[in-house]
């Protein structure tokens, strides 16, 4: 294990101390392990909260700031935060217009946020609405399973709903925007290596040289199947084809195309992939309206990537272009 850590047990609090030092514009509550926008609560604005296991940086704390999240709750590595954290965050960002919880569809996250929403409403009377992201086409959506995982689309939901909240729109509308982005978003990922959870000290699964996992999530879990490593063009096809098969992405407004790195894959490879993705989309008659390329929702030191497409409309693009000022995403402000 080659890691820059002190004690594996303290990686989350140690990283939060670093985040606090690097970003004095944010407030870090070390006791509750929550990161809060410096000027929260913003009076009259819907508060946006997300959170989840750590190890996906910059998601979620890197997206706290004007135009995006009001607070993020950091769990242990790959482990959902606990309800007390979400309740503390809800109190911290309640500006009188209610609070939106953005939750990735994982059993633990959903259950902890569910308990937190019940507790927050009972204890504080704040109106809480939850939107669950579930965009991973690798998982067959079925009533009999935990359902599709929430992955790449979560970044875009946080940005776009965050812009809607910043405009002062009411909670049902902000939640509606978040749901629209999720419903119009699909993702698929591959891994070229596993990742090492510091407390475990060794890779979560063995992946022999020359093999890759197709249909992975963001927790170092194996994917749906294992195949020989392929050239970028074929990888792009493995990622984009199931996405296009799942939803009709043709339309006048095009898509937001997001190529994400899983943590250990360099940006140059992500651009190699982006070119292949753009070529496939062009042949399929799908226009690209906006793009995002980089490691934004990661899985520790996993090598690999994911592709997320969101079918755009005027509202989505306007909100996407709106100013955002966070540690990891920043434009127009």
């Amino acid at each position, binding site marked *: 294990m080659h890691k820059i850590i002190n004690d594996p047990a303290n990686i989350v609090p140690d990283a939060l101390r670093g985040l606090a030092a690097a970003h004095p514009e944010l407030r870090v509550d070390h006791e509750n392990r929550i990161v809060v926008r410096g000027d929260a609560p913003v009076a009259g604005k819907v508060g946006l909260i997300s959170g989840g296991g750590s190890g996906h940086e910059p998601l979620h704390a890197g997206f706290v700031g004007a135009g995006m999240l009001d607070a993020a709750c950091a769990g242990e590595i790959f*482990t959902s935060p606990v309800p007390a954290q979400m309740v503390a965050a809800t109190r911290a960002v309640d500006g009188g217009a209610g609070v939106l919880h953005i939750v990735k569809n994982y059993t*633990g996250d959903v259950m*902890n946020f569910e308990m937190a929403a019940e507790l927050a409403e009972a204890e504080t009377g704040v109106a809480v609405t939850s939107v669950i992201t579930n965009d991973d086409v690798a998982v067959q959506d079925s009533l009999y399973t935990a359902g599709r995982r929430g992955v790449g689309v979560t970044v875009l939901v946080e940005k776009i709903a965050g812009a809607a909240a910043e405009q002062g729109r009411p909670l049902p509308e902000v939640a509606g925007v978040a749901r629209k982005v999720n419903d119009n978003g699909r993702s698929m990922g591959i891994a070229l290596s596993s990742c090492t959870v510091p407390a475990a000290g060794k890779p*979560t699964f063995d992946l022999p040289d020359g093999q890759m996992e197709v249909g992975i999530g963001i927790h170092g879990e194996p994917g749906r199947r294992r195949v020989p490593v392929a050239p970028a063009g074929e990888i792009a096809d493995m990622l984009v084809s199931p996405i296009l098969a799942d939803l009709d992405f043709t339309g006048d407004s095009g898509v937001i195309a997001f190529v994400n790195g899983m943590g250990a894959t360099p940006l140059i490879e992500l651009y190699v992939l982006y070119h292949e993705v753009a070529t496939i989309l062009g042949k399929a008659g799908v226009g690209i309206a906006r793009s995002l390329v980089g490691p934004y929702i990661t899985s520790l030191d996993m090598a690999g990537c994911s592709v997320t497409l969101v079918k755009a409309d005027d509202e989505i693009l306007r909100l996407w272009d709106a100013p955002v000022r966070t540690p990891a995403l920043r434009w127009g402000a």
Partner: protein
Amino acid sequence: MTGTVDTAALTAWLREFARLIGDNKSLLTELDSAIGDADHGVNMHRGMTAVLATLDAEVPDTPAVLLKRTGMTLISNVGGASGPLYGTAFLRMATAAGNDASLADGDVAKILRAGLDGIVARGKAEAGDKTMYDALAPAVDTLDAVLADGQPLAEALAAAVRAAEEGRAATIPMVARKGRASYLGERSAGHQDPGATSVTLLLAAAAITLPG
């Protein structure tokens, strides 16, 4: 309701469960690495260490208060899916325990049944989903049946542990339909479920400590 199972016995149960979780931390994490996210052992250990700290500080007067505090401690310290599931189970056990200072044999079965119901309400698991339910449900059924047969608690809990072990083994060929393992589809088959494994430890700890 009064009987032989008092807060001292329940404290011994929780301490033994914490010890078994500590001894099996690596095993639980290893099982979770195969089909989940490699954190079940670490999370349960963190939660039960926090529970031990509450026991060291003070042992409440009634089973209900002790069980409720244990549930809240687990919810606040475990995270993941296990925190709400084990936490809800202990909160439901607390409600079912009433306000008396000790529990009769039948009450032990009653609180474990309430805990199982809490897990179902929170996690919506059914038989065959490859979860803790698959070990706990047959154990609770067995406990009821053996006690109804007029056998003492020690016998009934021993039989319940055997039922849990069989249920745990039965998760190996199952294809997961709940939790993170469900994302693996058919590839989740051939692995023992970590939650079914830890809940079997909970019953094993009960069989050692509760009959006195």
